[in-house]
C-alpha cells in the first residue's frame, strides 16, 4: 500500500480538527495537539485504481502571537489549507501558509477548504467562494466549500487531494 503524508494548516479555530474527525478511521487523542502542536490521524482512501494510506497531520493553527511549527510540514505529499468561511481574515491568511509551504516543499498539491459552510447564507456562500476563487484560484488545485457539521464537501475534498497525491 502507498502511504502519503497530508498536512492541514490554517488559522486557529478554522475547524481543521473537526474536518479530520469527520473523515478519518483512526486518530490519537486531541490532547497531543495541544501538547506538541500536531495530531496524527489515519484514513485509507479508496481511489479508482489504488488504495492510499493517508497519514493526516493536523497542525495546530497559527495565531497572531504564535507561528506554525514548520518542522511538521517537512516531507508532506499534499496540503489542505483551511479557512473559516465566517471569518474573512482567515481566508486572507491563507496566502501566508501557501508561501510557508512553497518555501519548504516543492510542487506539492494544495487544496483550499472554506469551512463552516453550514453557518453561511446562500448569498454569503456565493460571495466567499467568488473571493476565494479570485484570491487563490491560480495557486491551489481545488477550492471546496466544507462543513464538518453537515459533512458537505469533506469526502470530496479529501478524495481530491488523495487523487492529486497518488501521482506525486
Amino acid at each position, binding site marked *: *500500500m502507498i502511504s502519503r503524508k497530508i498536512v492541514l494548516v490554517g488559522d486557529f479555530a478554522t475547524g481543521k480538527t473537526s474536518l479530520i474527525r469527520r473523515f478519518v478511521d483512526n486518530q490519537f487523542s486531541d490532547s497531543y495537539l495541544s501538547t506538541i502542536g500536531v495530531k496524527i490521524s*489515519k484514513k485509507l482512501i479508496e481511489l479508482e485504481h489504488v488504495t492510499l494510506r493517508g497519514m493526516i497531520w493536523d497542525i495546530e493553527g497559527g495565531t497572531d502571537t504564535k507561528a506554525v*511549527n514548520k518542522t511538521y510540514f*517537512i516531507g508532506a505529499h499534499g496540503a489542505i489549507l483551511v479557512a473559516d468561511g465566517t471569518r474573512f481574515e482567515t481566508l486572507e491568511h491563507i496566502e501566508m501558509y501557501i508561501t510557508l509551504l512553497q518555501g519548504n516543499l516543492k510542487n506539492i498539491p494544495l487544496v483550499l477548504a472554506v469551512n463552516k459552510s453550514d453557518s453561511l447564507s446562500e448569498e454569503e456562500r456565493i460571495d466567499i467562494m467568488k473571493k476565494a476563487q479570485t484570491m487563490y484560484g491560480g495557486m491551489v488545485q481545488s477550492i471546496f466549500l466544507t462543513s464538518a457539521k453537515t459533512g458537505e464537501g469533506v469526502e470530496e475534498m479529501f478524495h481530491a487531494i488523495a487523487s492529486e497525491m497518488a501521482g506525486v
Partner: protein
Amino acid sequence: MIDALYPIMGGMISKYVSQAIKEMMETINQKVEQGLSVERYKRKLKAKLSGVSETELLLEESADASLLAMFIIHKESGLLISEAHTEESNIGDPHMVASMASAIKDFINDWIASHKAEKEEVQILSYGKDTLYIESAGSVYLIAFLDSDPDYEMRSNINAFFASVVKQYADFFQSFNGDDRAEEVSELSDKMYAYIGSHSNREESISDTKPYNPAKWIFILLLSALLFYVGYQLKIYYDMNALEKRISRQTGEVVTIHKEDGSYILHGVLKEPSHFKSIQNLLAKSSYSKEIALDISLSVEGVKELIEAQEKRNEAQKTALSATYQKHLQVLKQQMISKLERLQKQQASLNKSLEAYENEKRTIKQLMELEKNLYTSLDRAFANNIYYNSRSHSLNFASLHLFRKGSIEPESRKLAIMATSFKKYLDVLSEYKPYIKQILLLSYSDTRGDAMHNKKLTEERAQNILKYFSHDPMISHSPVYSLIKTRGEGENNPVIVNGVEDRNASRRVEIQFTLDRNKIDTLLKNYLEKE
C-alpha cells in the same frame, strides 16, 4: 574504528558510550540507596535462596530490559518504512505510532535547538515503564521499543544492528516514496523479527544458567499453597457476599448465606412468593448452585398474597372458560342453523325431484292404462245403454232406424235420441282428447242395390248426420268435435243373423274412435329412456 565501520551511526554511538556507562552506574547507585525499601529485602531473600550475591542481582536487574518492537521511520514524512514486534507488545496501529513518534521527536529536537546552543538529538523517550530508544541516521529514524531503559550492552547491541541496517539500505531509505510493497520493506521486517527473536533467546539462555536450589522451590510451593487456600476462601466469601447482594438487588428480599456443618445454607423469609423462583434462577446461574441449600420460608403476608393471587387466577380462568364456552356454543349454533338450512334446501330439491318423478310415474301409468281406463269409463258411462257395444266400445244405432229405405235424410226425432248418447260418448272421449286420433261417424247400407250407389248413399247419410249435429251446441262445442270424421261404408260389413241378413240392422250408423297409438308409444318411450 567505530567511525570507520559505521560512517552514519558512528558519531552518535561513541557519544553515547560514555553516557550509557554513566546512566548504568546511576541506576545501580539508586538501587543501593533503596536500603529500607521492600525491594531490598526481596533481593536479600533472593540472594540467600539462590546463593547469588546481592551485587550480582543488582547488575542483573539493571540489564533486564526486553525488546518489544522495532520501527524504521522516514524522517521527513514520518511515514513508517518497516516494523517488527513481539506478540506481547501492545502497539495498536504501527503507522499512527510511527508518525506520532516522529512528530514527538521533531518537537523535542526543535525545543532542544531553541534552548541549547549545541545541536543535540533526543535519544530516549520514556513514558511509565515503556521506553523508546531512538536513533536518527540519514533519512530515517530507527526506534527500539523496550519495557524499561536499556543498559549499555543492550544499546550497543541495538546500535550495531541499526548501523548494519542503515549501511545496507541507505539508498532505499533515501528514495523511499511511501510504497510499502517494495521488496526491501519485507526484508527489513524479516531482519528486525530475527533480531528481536535472537534477543529474546539470549535472555532465556541467561536465566537458564541460574543454579537449582530445592529449598527455594519447596518454600515457594508451600507459600503458593497457603496463598492459594487463603485466596480461595476469600473468593468464596466474596462470591457469597456478591450473591446475597445480587439477590437483594434483583428481588428486594433480604437473604443471608451461612456455613453450617460444612455446608452453605441460604436463609430468608420472602415477602413476595414469586421471588422464590428468581432466587432459584440466580442460584442456578452461580457457580455454587450445588453447594448451597435453600432454607426459605414465606411471610404471612406472602402466603396471603399467594392465596389471593391463586384465587384471582382461578376466577380469571373461570371467566375465560365461560367466555370460551359461550363462544363455542354460538359457533356451534350457527353451524347447526347453516346445516339445517342446507338440509332443508336439499329436502326441497329432493321433494321437487320426487314430485317430478311421481308425476312421470303417474303419467307413465296413465299412458299404460289409458286404453283400459278409457274403456272402463265408457263401460261405466254406458252401462245400461242399448246403443253401446261393450266389446268394440263403440255406439251402434242400428236399432234406431235413422233412415228410411233409399233416403239420405235422417229422422229428426230419432236424431234427438241419438244426440243424447252421442253427446255422452264425446264427453267421455274429451277426457282423453290428447290421445284420441279420430272419432269416426260411420254409415252402412244393406246389400241390396248397386254397391257404388250404396257407398255414395252412406257417405251422404253420414255427412247429413254430422251436419245436423253441427247445429247442436252441446256437440259442436265438444273439445273433441274437431276430431269427428264421417265415412260411408256402403254395403260393407252387413249384419247377418242365422245366415240371413238383417237388412234393417245393416242399414245403420256407428260411432267409434281410434287412439293415437304412435303418440302414446312415443311418449312412453321418451319417459322410459329418461328414467
